């Protein structure tokens, strides 16, 4: 196989060949580094890359293999990390000026796990500032572009992680999903993106946006690769009290069992309005295909899901307003100069260190938690959240999984929504309900529009039943004619 072909390979086959000694991890790393050298700057996928570190990590994996150490299936596989995952001694900015130059003194739980598994650090990917956004235009540094059409956004907030996998710069990446920040960019970039069940992956070392919603999740180009990366990071961690022992790795052989006998529910009421016809057509195509594979399709109701956006935009900003209070210029990160007293220093540091969207959400959240408003906003939102959770548990008592689009539309253009926060928020209508319910949700590549843009379908499952979602996805993948398409920028040696 020619070096240029390697990036088209799955993580699974790369890991297998490195383990068997067929190739070295260093060779693999060099191939992907060369790919990223060609496209990363144009796409704006990375905030921080360090070839020396990547090669050193790969060299270490080769040494471990030579020493006879039995590594995981991800041995020697490069994995890119969203820049809100703490990496010891490696810049971690969350796409924000306020953390410019910040070097964490510790690795996030998932980073430790990947290191142990023998995965190779590929760099820190661009994202909306503190994971707040749906287009990666809110990065304080530069926007990320969609590999399928550089005039369009890759989605967000994990836009860099989605785009880098779509552009074959890395076989795998991790992002974080609070209201859709893994699934929506996965859909926009034509890759898989899994938001695990809340509690399935330790959040230790994930810089918090909204603690009760944040989950770290994998991006990959196949269902099996998605499972491999999920398996490498899931499970309880004593440093995260909300992580859960029920989170178990997915058996790869189970993904091949097909969907015969599975019941798949579609919440038709929720999908009634404002959805692009090509997205609807894709939904029907996926549903029909699964039916032909032996699944039964039924209607399910999620009556409170239409309140999701309002609910989310109270809870998430409320938690964010508290989580982001620590960026005050006192101990690390950016501090405004020339303030004459403490209050001024706080105001100037936070006023200039945070971007507009972050400031907007801090204000929203502060307001929602204020004396006199708490009951009407935050408390009310928490009650609606309970109702939405109940909707899902009832729907998932009838169906084994819920199928709905990941987004109402294909990727939009840069600048199209950036000045219209409401329109931007509405883009998350299909991803937010599962976040509020804490349910696992997977965005699956589901064909292309006539204009050549990716469409993503979403599967939502029962708590800790990531396996069923991946199994349905794998069944569809085998029938999906577009499954192995790569964007023009990544196709061929010199895109």
């Amino acid at each position, binding site marked *: 196989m020619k070096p240029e072909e390697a990036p088209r390979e799955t993580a699974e086959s790369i890991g297998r060949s490195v383990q068997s000694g067929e190739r070295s991890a260093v060779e693999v790393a060099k191939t992907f580094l060369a790919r990223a050298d060609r496209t990363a700057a144009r796409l704006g996928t990375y905030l921080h890359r360090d070839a020396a570190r990547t090669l050193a990590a790969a060299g270490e994996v080769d040494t471990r293999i030579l020493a006879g150490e039995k590594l995981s299936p991800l041995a020697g596989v490069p994995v890119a990390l969203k820049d809100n995952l703490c990496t010891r001694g490696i810049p971690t900015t969350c796409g924000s000026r306020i953390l410019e130059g910040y070097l964490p003194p510790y690795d996030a739980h998932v980073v430790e796990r990947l290191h142990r598994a023998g995965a190779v650090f590929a760099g820190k990917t661009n994202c909306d500032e503190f994971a707040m956004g749906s287009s990666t235009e809110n990065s304080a540094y530069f926007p990320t572009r969609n590999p399928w059409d550089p005039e369009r956004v890759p989605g967000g907030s994990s836009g860099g992680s989605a785009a880098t996998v779509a552009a074959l710069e890395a076989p795998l990446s991790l992002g974080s999903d609070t209201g859709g920040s893994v699934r929506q960019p996965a859909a926009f970039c034509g890759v898989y993106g899994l938001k695990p069940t809340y509690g399935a992956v330790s959040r230790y070392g994930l810089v918090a946006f909204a603690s009760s919603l944040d989950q770290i999740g994998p991006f990959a180009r196949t269902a099996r690769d998605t499972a491999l990366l999920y398996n490498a990071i899931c499970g309880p961690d*004593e*440093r995260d009290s909300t992580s859960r022992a029920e989170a178990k790795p997915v058996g790869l052989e189970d993904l091949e069992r097909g969907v015969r006998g599975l019941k798949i529910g579609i919440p038709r009421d929720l999908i009634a309005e404002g959805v692009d016809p090509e997205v609807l057509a894709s939904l029907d195509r996926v549903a029909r295909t699964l039916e032909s594979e032996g699944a039964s399709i039924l209607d399910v109701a999620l009556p409170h899901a239409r309140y999701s956006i309002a609910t989310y935009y109270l809870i998430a900003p409320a938690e964010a307003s508290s989580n982001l209070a620590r960026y005050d210029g006192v*101990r690390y990160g950016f501090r405004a100069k020339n303030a004459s007293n403490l209050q001024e220093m706080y105001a100037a540091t936070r006023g200039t260190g945070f971007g507009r969207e972050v400031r907007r959400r801090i204000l929203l959240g502060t307001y929602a938690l204020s*004396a006199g408003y*708490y009951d009407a906003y*935050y408390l009310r939102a928490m009650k609606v959240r309970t109702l939405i959770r109940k909707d899902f548990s009832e729907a998932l008592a009838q169906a084994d999984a819920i199928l709905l689009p990941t987004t109402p539309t294909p990727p939009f253009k840069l600048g199209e929504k950036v000045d219209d926060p409401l329109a931007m928020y509405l883009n998350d209508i299909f991803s937010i309900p599962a976040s509020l319910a804490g349910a696992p949700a997977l965005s699956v590549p589901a064909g292309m529009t006539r204009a050549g843009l990716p469409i993503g379908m979403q599967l939502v499952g029962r708590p800790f039943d990531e396996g069923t979602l991946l199994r349905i996805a794998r069944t569809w993948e085998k029938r999906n004619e577009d499954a192995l398409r790569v964007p023009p920028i990544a196709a061929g040696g010199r895109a």
Partner: protein
Amino acid sequence: MSGYETVIGLEVHAQLKTESKIFCGCSTRFGARPNTQVCPVCLGLPGVLPVLNERAVRFAVMAGLAVGSAIEGRSVFARKNYFYPDLPKGYQISQYDRPLCSGGGVDIQVDGVWKRIGLVRIHLEEDAGKSIHPEGREGVTTTLVDLNRSGVPLIEIVSEPEIRSGAEAYDYLIRLKQTLMYLDVCDGNMEEGSLRCDANVSVRPLGQVEFGTKTEVKNMNSFRNVERAIAFETERQIRLLESGGRVVQETLLWNADKNQAEPMRSKEEAHDYRYFPEPDLLPLDLTTAWIESVRSNLPELPHQVRARLERELEIPAYDAEVLTETRALARYYEETARRAGNGKLASNWIMTEVNGIRNKQGQSIEEFPIRPDRLGALVKMIAEERISGKIGKQVFELMLTQPEGPEELVNAKGLLPIDDESSLRALAREVIAANPGPVAEVKAGKERTFAFLVGQAMKQSRGRAHPEKIQDALRKELAAS
């Protein structure tokens, strides 16, 4: 001040004596070099999460059970949001609408009258770091932050507004501290900040049911200062009302040097804490079985020890009160009394002799050189009238600097009493021979001089002569001479 009643509610913060902090593994030891007992979690670095220390929960539940609080099966941690340089996360993890303990009370005694001060709640929270303002150049303010204290577990004990005077407040604090120290969950050291107290103070005309407007007084670093601050604030409020003014709800800082409470700058107190449930921690669920296991392992509490000592060792309530000041003193007393076989005599010796010396030297009972085995043996000799109290005192003084027991000292120093007839008669003869003048006076009928001869006999025997029997002996020898 007549015509008014003071209404006081106290908020006490007690640091729990756990080895490690409430949400991470860092040491809680006081006095280490600044910022050496810290980790990403208690520094509040991006991405960290709290993990609750079980021992902190146990200690808080012990405190709640000791003061009769109801322990809630489910309590919820909440974030209290405010900006301050020594608060690294920008919020304090505390408890708000669902605290760990509700109700309960502390029995206090002022002027011999017992009164119960009810408790609203006890909740668990983390301490903040410490801001230090070193003297700098003129006009330049530097603030240094030490985060060693950040994350040390605290309980906040909130009383009902049922305290009516500084004296009551003082006794409440003494007894609360005593209970916490008996439980060994707090070291009670106010100077080191392991026990802190804020007071909510208001006044109202006698007979009025509604509360007056309250002020909150902070920054009092001793129980006496709490008492003084309450007195100051009571007087200030009454004077204000009497002169036609109104009390403004505000926070005051006690200035111990000036002996006055001064208003905080309004900016520092204009807080809306925006409490909401802490999403990084699960609700704290305690099973009844767990709570009961904590209850059954509670040590004996001050009032229980007092009652038991009164009953078993037959001492008055006052003695029991003094001897149970600390758990160690109570243990010391109890062992001494049991060895002496006489509770009241042991009590007297400890309250006067032992405490007298300790107070002079500033010694804790643990440091006191005479341990209960030796003191008990001494008191036993006195109780059995083998030596007089006076000799006992001499032996006691010797024991302060020498390791021997009372028996050895009495024998070695020849301190055994002289009470046999022939020795006493011999002593009497010596005294008569040595004092011809006084002897003549006694014989001439001057009875008062007889006491002088007795004194001479006691002096010559260095107090060892039996005080009654020597008088007999003198009379007999005088008659015979």
